[in-house]
């Protein structure tokens, strides 16, 4: 049996692919809430010991999810000052713990609302927007524009079956007019596209965004054509530590068989792309809309703060 860190790593990676980083962080907190409610330990001391071990394992997973780590840091800090520094009986500590997790969840929803509010500054009226990854943040922003009565069209760049279908379902449910074009045929519609919207997993200290596979070539192509590419990202997703390796990119090798002939071949897939921030025209965050240069400055400030041990999220 694999150990807990490996199991958690795999679970988090699968979840990130399915629901995106922001929703992953929220899901983890909600699962923690469920677990705390079901937990039966005598006092807060025992809870603190187990919580510390769990946080340690979660923070050792690969890849690291900044947004999740900062929230766990907040909880650790809060518990250190409350339930873990004095003796609490079961009902007392549970109440305290549940309330603090709920507070973080509320804050996360507020940050999400702020990002959408900042996005209102973009002019999408009668524009054609290209999307590729299945970023839930981009979906939320587009849905918000639609609910504001804006008129725009979406072109979905076709990629992996599941991700393309997730985009189609999302656009359909919001009543947004859309068209699907295979990602390798986009050169034929450069002139029809006014802007591109993307979401990202994180921003590294190298000023590279970790994004869905296939995005680097697509963004480079449109950047070359001078068509504005926008990134929508919560600043809580930034990886505020020195990146040591390309730990977030996983290679999946598997054997495939030819559809009609008995030919077996090795197929290689990669989990993510690294995309330089400078390829983006603007970066829309919960703290405002920035140029790549401005964002680098903000990133460095946050990183210094993090290194000093100050609270980020």
């Amino acid at each position, binding site marked *: 049996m694999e150990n807990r860190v490996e199991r958690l790593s795999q679970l988090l990676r699968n979840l990130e692919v399915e629901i995106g980083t922001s929703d992953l962080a929220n*899901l983890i907190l909600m699962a923690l809430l*469920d677990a705390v409610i079901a937990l039966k330990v005598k006092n807060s001391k025992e809870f603190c010991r187990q919580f510390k071990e769990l946080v340690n394992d979660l923070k050792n997973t690969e890849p690291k999810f900044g947004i999740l780590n900062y929230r766990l840091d907040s909880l650790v800090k809060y518990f250190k000052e409350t339930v873990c520094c004095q003796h609490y009986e079961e009902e007392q500590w549970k109440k305290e713990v549940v309330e603090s997790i709920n507070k973080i969840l509320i804050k996360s929803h507020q940050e999400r609302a702020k990002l959408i509010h900042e996005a209102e500054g973009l002019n999408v009226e009668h524009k054609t927007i290209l999307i590729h990854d299945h970023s839930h943040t981009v979906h939320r922003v587009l849905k918000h524009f639609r609910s504001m009565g804006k008129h725009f069209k979406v072109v979905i760049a076709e990629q992996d079956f599941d991700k393309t279908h997730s985009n189609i379902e999302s656009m359909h449910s919001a009543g947004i007019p859309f068209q699907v074009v295979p990602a390798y045929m986009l050169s034929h519609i450069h002139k029809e596209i006014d802007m591109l919207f993307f979401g990202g997993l994180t921003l590294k200290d190298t000023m590279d965004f970790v994004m869905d596979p296939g995005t680097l070539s697509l963004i480079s192509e449109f950047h070359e054509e001078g068509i504005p590419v926008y990134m929508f990202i919560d600043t809580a997703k930034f990886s505020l530590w020195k990146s040591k390796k390309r730990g977030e990119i996983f290679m999946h090798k598997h054997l495939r068989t030819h559809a009609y002939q008995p030919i077996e071949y090795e197929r290689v897939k990669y989990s993510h792309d690294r995309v330089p921030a400078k390829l983006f025209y603007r970066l829309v965050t919960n703290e405002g809309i920035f140029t790549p240069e401005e964002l680098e400055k903000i990133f460095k400030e946050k990183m210094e703060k993090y290194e000093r041990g100050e609270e980020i999220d």
Partner: protein
Amino acid sequence: MEYLALAIFFSVFVFIIFDLYDKSLVALFGAFLMIVLGILGAEEAVSAIKFEAIFLLLGMMIIVNIASKSGIFQWASVKIAALTKGNPLAIFLFFSILTGLASAFLDNVTTILLIVPLTIELLRGMGKDPKPYLFSEIMFSNIGGDLTLIGDASNIIIGSASGLGFLDFIKNLWIPVLAVGIFTILAFVVFKWKDLKPHSDDLGKLFIANVIIRKIKNKFAKVSLSKSFVIKVVSIIILTILAFLIQEYLGLPNYVIAFIGAILLGILVSKKVHIHEALKSVEWTTLFFFSGLFIMVAGLEKTGLLETLSQAIASSTNNVFYLSLIILWICGIFSMILDNVPFVTVMIPVILGIQTQFPGTDTTVLWWALSMGACLGGNGTLVGGSANVVAAGLAKKDGVHISFLEYLKFGLPITTGMLLISSLYLFLRFA
């Protein structure tokens, strides 16, 4: 002629056991061989097919296929998974009981297809061995299937041959089914407590379990349930079961009730599920397999071999209770190693023959013995029932390899216990 018929029948059995060709092809080939070689006339062969059993199966398959497209079964299993809150004992109990209940009214394989992947995802994610849970689900699908006329193919065949109704099966089998169910749960809890015990004092385990439950819920949330579709499906299933229950008063045969249910559901949801789709998902090979078997057994019957067998069994004792025990155990042992349907099909004319040897005596108990032997005996080995084979296949696909011996270690003693409980029931009720 007798030897020729026997040779064809046993050759077909061997081909089925070793899975050399699809069993429907083998059974149909054997049936046509009997016609071509003159053992049975063509008209006799057609009239040997028990169309009431075939139509009842067909009707239920259509209902289940359409119903599964509504997402209601997925919804129910996800809800149950959420209710367990990641507690291993609750997962074991809820999933086993759900499998048993669902198998009583739906097809066993459909139930297994739904429950097994969910169980593996949940348990493996939690770092637990899913095998004890899967073994229990396999067993409960066979136990639940024994409860009703529509729960297992062998019961459908028994029902159509004996004229026993839906309510008769429930009235006579609920006690042994319940007792066997409790026994199975207790056996697993006692011998596999290490794998099943709740971990309510372990935050890490609770956390991982709840992450997986939320992941499963989230995956299901993407599937949009159509309220009207679900209402129509649930209403038709309830109405069909109610009609089965009051079949005596309605005066309609079971297959007519199932077919009316299927047709009504097909009409009501025609905009959601095209009837072509529903018919495509019918297991036609199973229906052809049964047809072939019916013809072959008729061929054997015509040669007088089965009558001789009936007389031999009947002459071994003049006590119907002892006869029922013989049938229970022979059928139970055969069902452990063979597909129970061919065996039950052979046993039908044998039991009908035995009944003629006991005029004026109530010999219904023999049918219950046959049903319990066929359904519960299937739990003995990994090849004892279609649910067992399908569950092992699904598990293998998900990286959980269940070996024949691994299952046998659990299956054989527990099935022996089940057959002992069934014997006790027969003794208390009919001795």
